[in-house]
């Protein structure tokens, strides 16, 4: 875009110079013609003005382009920020076998969620409680509910309105990792956090 308009401008100025030269050489009369001199002068002035206008326009366009670029860059940065916030929000927390208490190593992750929820008052989330396959299938629905409630209670206790947090339990029905060892089980005993509304342009907590 930039090179095309530049070429166009160059072509235009070449044409202007050509016409002004031609205008100067056309009269054979050596007596200077005041009118023609004035015309030539005017033509020169005009071509200078035209070149100046072109330069101004170029500068203006360049400025606009830069502004657009800046805007795009900052938008990208903003969405990069939102992406990061979203990831922080989606960070899962984990539980010990047959337990629903919040582990101390997960409190940081929950504190981040509190901050995000505070910085984004329209944001609503759903907490899903999950279990590993070791427990009883049906009991795990109750246990998953306890886990989701425990996560919600932590957020509410730190100042988040309870109405902004839905909960659900999946029991052991949606394992994150297939496998029948502690590595898989420990990852499957978790609470997941998903946005239900107000998740566009998430603001980073200050």
């Amino acid at each position, binding site marked *: 875009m930039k090179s095309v308009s530049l070429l166009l401008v160059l072509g235009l100025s070449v044409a202007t110079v050509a016409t002004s030269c031609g205008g100067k050489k056309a009269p054979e009369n050596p007596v200077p013609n005041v009118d023609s001199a004035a015309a030539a002068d005017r033509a020169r002035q005009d071509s200078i003005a035209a070149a100046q206008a072109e330069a101004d326009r170029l500068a203006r366009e360049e400025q606009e382009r830069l502004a657009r670029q800046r805007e795009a860059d900052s938008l990208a940065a903003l969405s990069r920020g939102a992406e990061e916030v979203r990831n922080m929000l989606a960070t899962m927390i984990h539980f010990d076998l047959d337990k629903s208490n919040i582990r101390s190593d997960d409190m940081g992750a929950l504190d981040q969620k509190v901050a995000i929820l505070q910085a984004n008052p329209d944001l609503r989330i759903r907490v899903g409680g999950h279990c590993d396959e070791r*427990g009883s*299938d*049906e*009991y795990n*629905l*109750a246990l998953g509910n306890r886990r989701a409630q425990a996560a*919600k209670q932590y957020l509410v206790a730190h100042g988040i309105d309870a109405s902004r947090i839905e909960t659900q*339990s999946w*029991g052991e*029905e949606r394992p994150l990792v297939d496998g029948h060892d502690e590595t898989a089980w420990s990852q499957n005993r978790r609470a997941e956090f998903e946005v239900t509304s107000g998740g566009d342009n998430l603001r980073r907590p200050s």
Partner: protein
Amino acid sequence: MTPLLLAVLLVMQDTSAIDRGVRIGIIYRPGVRPGLVALPRSGGGAGLDSVRAIIARDLDYSDRFEIITLPGGDSIRLSSSTTGTPARGSTSRNGTSRPSSAANSALNYPLYQALGADFALDVTRAGDTTLATLHDIAAASVRRTVRATLPPPTSPDFRLAVHRLGDQVVQAALGVTGIAATRVLFVREGKVYQIDQDGADQKLVSSTNRQAMSPAWAADGRHFAYMEFQAGKGWLYFQEMGTDKRTAVSTTGTALDFTPAFSPDQQTMVFSRATEEGTDLYSINIKNNCCLRRLTVGRFSDNLSPTFSPDGQRIAFVSTRPGLPQVYVMAADGTDQQLFAPFDYGVTGSSNAPEWSPDGQSVAFHRDVAGTLQVFVLDVRTRTVRQLTSVGRNEDPTWAPDSRHLAFVSDRSGYRQLWIIDLDTGRIRPLLQQSGARLPAWSPRLSEASTTTP
């Protein structure tokens, strides 16, 4: 053949007189199973052969008979002509002379008796009617002939009709009803399926693609209930068997509802509801689809997995009030809650998935033993528990209507599948050789009316 016949005749002399006296009035003696021989026959077409095979398997799976397999099949039967005289002699000594026994005069009663048979079953056909003739070997006569007009083998009702015939044979022999005409509901890959108790005729009964759990039979065998995940909630439905007609239980869809259980009179459904307060038991009138009642107030504990006593007076359930889940019991209105299956605090593992037996005497459940699950049975009267399984992980037991068989999930073969155990003999057989089947629910006896497709 000669040594066999000799042995047969020798044994015959010992057993006939003693056993005849003992067997009078005997319906069933635990530990001593009457011998039964299904007479090998040919003829009647492939349809009749499959009827014979299905009934023979039903009788075997009833675990109430010692099934005697005849070596060489027909040869034994053909040899009856050479030993026909003692058979007729036995008949006359016994003083019975029935027309039907005359018709089966070729049956070599002493031979079968010598083989250990108390009963012989003969399946024949007369026109459209299939006849199952049960011979009483000791009495050397026909005990009963059961007649049935079976649908053609291509009909979806065929197998169940044959199973009913099998149950009538058990009834004729022992005076108790068998479990041949029953089915098991289970969950596989999130969908509800049904399967005949003999492992045949697996059929999808789920009517949606949503993930389902916890199927439960109504006492009429014509309806079942189950839970379905939907938009983050657990919905309870009851559905008519053999149709896609289903009704959402009133008030469901507001929370996570699961583990539905019908009261025996089918007026009430009790279920678990998980809310912010935890999980508690609720009841709802399903006849009028109204009148939600809360039965437990757990506060800091969960209450779930209800199962009615067959008289409808009590509900056994799981409660986490002692810390780990254990089996509790209460009156059907939620009063008088107390511990049901004893446990040692801090020693006994979690106990879950109770199901009250149809005879009311036992509650089956599974319990964590050393990190894996095992099936236990609670004796309701003495409140003592005994461990039933020990190989692999065994869970979610469900009672057959005879209160002596349990279907359960076990990984004893390497992957989780459905198995059936007979509590009296300890015999275990696979119900379904497919991995991933779980949460089985054994039907009541399925009467004619309960399965006829509208």
